[in-house]
């Protein structure tokens, strides 16, 4: 009786302890939100919800609106996602399913190396290599295409396209290594089950990818989370112009970039508060994106619990 009682109390203590750690996480998130709100009170009071939908960012006139930055952040991140996802999944499938054994480790090492390169180095590479390449691509584009709103504007090199490409390159290692792990965790029985029914190699791989789909979405969302918050490299190639444009060639701006660029220059209280509110907006958007992806994964996993439990579902990383 005593031993059982002791075991129970250890069990209870363990649950309370781990519960407390979980609670700390919630408290930290709330504290960040609270502090960001408190520090941006001036701006919140002055602009209210208009802050979210005003296009003007004019520190001299004291007019602040976050819309160009929200636009730029979402545009560049989605563009990066569109470029990175197929490539990253291709790499993951190649490494985990197709590549000969001797090539596997070197490739894994290479992708991990890409992930370890500091953002600023990507930025430098962006300025010296990517931007001229993008400029050359832009000038070589036939003028008929240049009429489209997506490709309008002077071929500067710096701009949305360069930002999207550099973000994609930075995101690929993360998405592909998580997707690779997820594919690795697919039981061999799934592939063999498909083969046994007369599947080709391609069809068996498709069965494995389907089995791992929730985890793969997690991998993609992880990449999205990273792209949303990435600062340095984007700041160096996006052109830093707070002007909404659909054009891939137009210089634009992101939330993280404006924070990095202007924080030290904020000479009025309102300016500073507006910048912090941008941080708040980024924080909220990141939270919303992560929650939505959780919801998506959860709703897909619900009718098929067994498989969802079998693969790791990575948490999309908070970027703010």
């Amino acid at each position, binding site marked *: 009786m005593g031993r059982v009682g002791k075991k129970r109390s250890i069990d209870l203590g363990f649950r309370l302890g781990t519960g407390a750690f979980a609670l700390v996480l919630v408290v930290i998130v709330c504290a960040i939100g609270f502090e960001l709100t408190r520090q941006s009170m001036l701006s919140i009071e002055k602009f209210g919800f208009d802050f979210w939908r005003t296009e003007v960012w004019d520190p001299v006139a004291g007019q602040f609106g976050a819309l160009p930055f929200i636009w730029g952040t979402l545009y560049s991140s989605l563009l990066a996602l569109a470029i990175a996802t197929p490539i990253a999944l291709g790499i993951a499938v190649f490494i985990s399913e197709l590549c000969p054994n001797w090539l596997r480790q070197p490739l894994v090492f290479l992708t991990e190396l890409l992930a370890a390169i500091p953002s600023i180095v990507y930025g430098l590479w962006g300025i010296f290599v990517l931007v001229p390449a993008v400029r050359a691509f832009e000038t070589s584009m036939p003028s008929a295409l240049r009429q489209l709103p997506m490709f309008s504007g002077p071929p500067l090199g710096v701009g949305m396209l360069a930002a999207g490409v550099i973000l994609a390159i930075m995101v690929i290692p993360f998405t592909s290594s998580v997707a690779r792990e997820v594919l690795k965790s697919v039981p061999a029985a799934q592939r063999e089950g498909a083969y*046994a029914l007369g599947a080709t190699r391609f069809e068996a791989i498709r069965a494995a990818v*389907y089995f791992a789909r929730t985890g793969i979405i997690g991998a993609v969302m992880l990449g999205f989370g990273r792209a949303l918050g990435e600062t340095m490299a984007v700041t160096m190639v996006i052109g830093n112009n707070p002007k909404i444009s659909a054009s891939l060639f137009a210089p634009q701006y992101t939330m993280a970039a404006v924070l990095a660029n202007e924080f030290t220059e904020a000479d009025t209280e309102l300016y500073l508060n507006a910048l912090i509110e941008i941080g708040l907006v980024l924080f909220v958007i990141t939270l919303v994106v992560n929650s939505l992806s959780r919801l998506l994964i959860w709703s897909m996993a619900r009718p098929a619990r067994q498989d969802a439990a079998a693969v790791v579902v990575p948490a999309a990383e908070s970027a703010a």
Partner: protein
Amino acid sequence: MLQTAVPLPSPAAVPSLPVAPAPAPDTAAKITASGLDFYYGPRRVLEQITLQMRRNEVTALIGPSGCGKSTFLRTLNRMNDIVPGARVEGSVVLDGRDIYAAAVDVVDLRRRVGMVFQKSNPFPKSIFDNVAYGLRINRMTRSREDLEGRVEASLRSAALWDEVKDRLHTSALALSGGQQQRLCIARALAVEPEVLLMDEPASALDPIATQRIEELIYQLKSRYTIVIVTHNMQQAARVSDVTAFFWLGRLVETGLTTKIFTAPAQKLTEDYITGRFG
């Protein structure tokens, strides 16, 4: 280890390491393995296996763990091809043609030689889509009605239809273990195989579910050539016509199940089925 219910006659002692006697040629043989050697890398795990598996019969493969039963079974539909470093020597002839010949279409071979695994492995899809999977990838149906008809027929053959007909479009993973295993059998039957390989299909199931699988095997026998691996001696005695006893990568003895379980020719076989080792 399970004891056989059948009383055994006094053993005829056979001292030397036994070698399977080559069975007489049989025209009813569906698959014949001859002189089969199998290697995982440098390691030989099957040695000179010669075995015939006949139409409309159940052949049971028995033997202690690690003796190569699964490996042998997997050579029959070339499932070992996907294992890196695996190598086969000798021949496996299906309907008069060597399945390891260069011209053989492995995908089509695997459709003709179906397989059910030890642990049920349904796809994380609906019950319907699981059974339809093989039909779809092999483009075996002409219309939606055709597809639905074949799915129903397969589920009926696997004795699962009545239990799932009202929830065909719910997840297969919500089924019980025994139902999932029958679903995997239905999925294998859907693509109209000629041979059905079963690797311990009931080892993860309770006695009632096991009995259902055994009844099913008995019914399916009239239409297929069945090869089953089992650790359960009574099961082998109940469901099979022919039993092959494997030991350390060799085929020690093969013969009619009634004979193997009542008057085995080899001492080793007798020791194994009476539970003296293994």
